[in-house]
């Protein structure tokens, strides 16, 4: 009888062990899913929002909107301040777009203020033998200036250099803002880029009209017709040139937007994967720190951010030089 009792106790223990093992397995599955979703405010983790928002690294606005200050009853004043920047708790996605606009405008303004402060501090004591900060700024400005002048030509080039340099520095600082730990890059927001593209488009057309005169500008759009055949083809040329001119700002902004948003999503997905790997460990149930699997993509994002800023301003330079007459030797 003791044998059967022992046997039943053993089998009962086995059952308990088996169910405990199943429970641990199930808990591990759940924690794996939780680690995958990463709902906790992880230190270097990533967040997946409710809805179809693509994953990206945690930034200051996410932390603010999930903090305890974002409570309407408890902290009404702080709630009023935080609400324009909150896009996590907003059920209506259209309003969320506007709130995201507030976030991106704020970070853009921060990058502009940063550039102005750095330039002022570096150029405050302009000397013939430059200090370190001044020579660094001069390195950037002169290198870019030579590069753009080599495309635009010496005679008419220098009047377009301020616009192109401002474009490059603004876009570069915007892209690099995504690398700072709790910031986001405003270039990952489409409205930011389409505005830059429209600005380049309007400036190029204004340059064409002002430099060529209205008559030659229209002739340029018609494809410079000078005999009967080209005059007959000119409506087709007008159509093609209009489409070509309208597609340029769209392609410029989409290229920048796609690259930077793709990099953000890549970083977010790999950070989530790092958290998921840590969640597979037996004792962990809601990991705060995961493996930094997104490290190589940080370097890639630095490189691509610089290259995309360079490409944007280089293409603006090329469009301006296409509007100017081609009768100058390089």
């Amino acid at each position, binding site marked *: 009888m003791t044998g059967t009792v022992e046997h039943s106790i053993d089998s009962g223990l086995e059952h308990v062990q088996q169910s405990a093992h199943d429970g641990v397995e199930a808990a591990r599955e759940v924690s794996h899913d939780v680690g995958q979703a990463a709902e906790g405010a992880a230190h270097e983790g990533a967040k997946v929002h409710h809805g*179809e928002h693509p994953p990206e690294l945690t930034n200051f606005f996410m932390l603010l909107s999930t903090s305890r200050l974002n409570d309407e009853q408890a902290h009404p004043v702080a709630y009023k301040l935080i609400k324009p920047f909150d896009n996590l708790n907003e059920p209506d996605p259209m309003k969320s777009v506007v709130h995201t606009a507030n976030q991106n405008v704020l970070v853009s303004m921060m990058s502009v203020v940063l550039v102005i402060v750095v330039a002022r501090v570096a150029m405050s004591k302009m000397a013939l033998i430059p200090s370190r900060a001044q020579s660094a700024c001069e390195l950037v400005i002169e290198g870019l200036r030579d590069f753009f002048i080599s495309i635009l030509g010496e005679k008419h080039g220098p009047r377009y250099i301020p616009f192109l340099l401002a474009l490059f520095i603004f876009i570069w600082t915007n892209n690099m803002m995504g690398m700072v730990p709790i910031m986001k890059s405003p270039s990952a927001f489409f409205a930011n880029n389409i505005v830059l593209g429209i600005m380049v488009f309007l400036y190029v057309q204004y340059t064409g009209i002002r430099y060529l005169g209205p008559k030659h500008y229209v002739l340029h759009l018609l494809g410079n017709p000078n005999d009967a055949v080209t005059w007959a083809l000119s409506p087709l040329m007008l159509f093609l040139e209009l489409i070509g001119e309208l597609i340029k700002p769209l*392609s410029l902004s*989409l290229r920048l937007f*796609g*690259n930077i*948003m793709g990099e953000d999503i890549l970083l977010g997905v790999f950070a989530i994967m790092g958290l998921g790997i840590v969640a597979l460990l037996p004792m962990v149930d809601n990991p705060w720190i995961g493996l930094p699997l997104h490290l190589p993509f940080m370097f890639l994002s630095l490189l691509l951010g610089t*290259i995309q800023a*360079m*490409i944007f301003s280089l293409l603006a330079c090329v469009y301006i030089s296409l509007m100017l007459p081609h009768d100058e030797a390089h």
Partner: protein
Amino acid sequence: MDMNLIQIGGPIGLGLAALGAGLGLGRAVGSAVEAAGRQPEASGKIQVMMIIGCAFIEALAIYAFIVALLLK
């Protein structure tokens, strides 16, 4: 299956665009490396031109990525 057609066609389009971009980038980088092999002192300029050309070709694949992401 309650998927709409864009969830099947989006990734297929993205794969095709990546295929085209891979072929184009292979040609561009290949000729850049070959030119640098012929004249190593020009390799700085060749590298700059290669980076710019690669950004153009890459942008075409990124257009497909944006369409697949925003229309899903």
